[in-house]
């Protein structure tokens, strides 16, 4: 759970960096989109690196979901009689947020691949280049809205996920350490959410050519 989750986090950071390229104009972004398909050529075939990444992500996803489902099922079996009254707070909130939120992110990823990788779904008019597809999609307010909702779900998931990964890896060794881990999870989650949302809003507000 921790290792696959951290691999996703690494991927998100790379992905976010790539998305920010759109601020430097459509050529830079299209060049980048082309480049990730040709990294290592001719030593590795076209889309070689991309496919290694895709397979890695898929394998991680399977393991991540398998672990989550196991924990969910065990929790259900460990308390078959529910409480009449439950405290409201961090734990009870994230117990739901991680599971339903994780499911929401999964649905978003499917939608997202159909949208920008296979171009099966288009937001606005279909467009020929990656940069034009992105600009067209985020010129629609509802296109931005879908991505905002998804990023909030990702942010919440990371907020608790990074903390949880540190716990599992045995990094929480003192009260002071716990505070530092909390701080890092808030920082990283914020960077990811803000970083991913800069391009959509920049486009919506007409700041990207």
């Amino acid at each position, binding site marked *: *759970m*921790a*290792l696959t989750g951290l691999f996703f986090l690494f991927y998100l950071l790379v992905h976010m960096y790539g998305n920010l390229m759109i601020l430097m104009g459509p050529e830079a972004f299209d060049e980048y989109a082309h480049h990730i398909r040709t990294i290592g050529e001719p030593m590795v075939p076209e889309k070689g690196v991309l496919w290694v990444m895709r397979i890695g992500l898929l394998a991680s996803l399977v393991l991540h979901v398998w*672990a989550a489902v*196991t*924990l969910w099922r*065990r*929790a259900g*079996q*460990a*308390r*078959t*009689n*529910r*409480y*009449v*009254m*439950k*405290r*409201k*707070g*961090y*734990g*009870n909130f*994230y*117990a739901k947020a*991680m599971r339903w939120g994780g499911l929401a992110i999964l649905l978003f990823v499917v939608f997202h691949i159909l949208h920008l990788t296979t171009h099966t779904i288009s937001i606005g008019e279909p467009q020929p280049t990656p940069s034009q597809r992105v600009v067209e999609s985020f010129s629609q307010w509802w296109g931005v809205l879908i991505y905002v909702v998804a990023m909030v779900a990702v942010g919440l998931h990371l907020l*608790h996920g990074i*903390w*949880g990964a*540190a*716990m*599992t*890896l*045995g*990094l*929480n*060794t*003192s*009260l002071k*350490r*716990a505070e530092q881990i909390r701080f890092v999870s808030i920082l990283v989650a914020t960077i990811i959410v803000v970083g991913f949302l800069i391009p959509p809003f920049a486009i919506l507000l007409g700041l990207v050519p």
Partner: protein
Amino acid sequence: MRLALRIWRQDGPQHTGQMVRYDIDGVSEDSSFLEMLDLLNEQLIHKGEEPVAFDSDCREGICGTCGVVINGEAHGPERTTTCQLHMRSFKDGDEIVIEPWRADPFPVIKDLVVDRSSFDRIIQAGGFISANTGSAPDAHATPVRKEDADRAFMAAECIGCGACVAACPNASGMLFMGAKITHLGELPQGQPEREARVVSMTEQHDHEGFGGCTNLGECTRACPKGIPMNVISQMNADLRRAGFGAR
């Protein structure tokens, strides 16, 4: 004080239970929560009704026998045991919902009383050290670093009440288990069995049907002794040392 109580009533392990409402008057703010229940039971007996079964022993917060979920919080609103909770933490006219610890490894025996022998079996699986019999060794024969001793004492505060399981959305027993593992693992006497301990205790824990930790922290919040979550991280670190992978 006048209170409206809603209490879980269940005849036995094989029965289904339900919440029953009781109105009670004349409760002193200075009485403890359990004394309030004693008062209720006297009135019930007077009326010829079955008194509410609940557990307690020391009534001074050290044995871990008492413990009910009050308004959705294990041991109620204060950081203490149910027996050390006082009625001044409530207001006149309050409605108070009282339930037993709810976790399948803690089956209800009657009303608010649960069977926590699953905790005993976890201790039997590894919560011990081996020592030679004979005359007691000198107190200073095995030096212990101050920091290690402090952490061991901190973890040793756990009284095995089970509030961590009751509060956990996964009904996991890992705060309790982590406390025992940290307590013994910080001391030189705990080293020989350290790796075997964490493995067999974890296996027993899972075998008893407790859930897995998802690092939510409801346990720490409910713990009357304030055992911190880093004991769970310590358990994970020891598991890794013993050759078990990350989950």
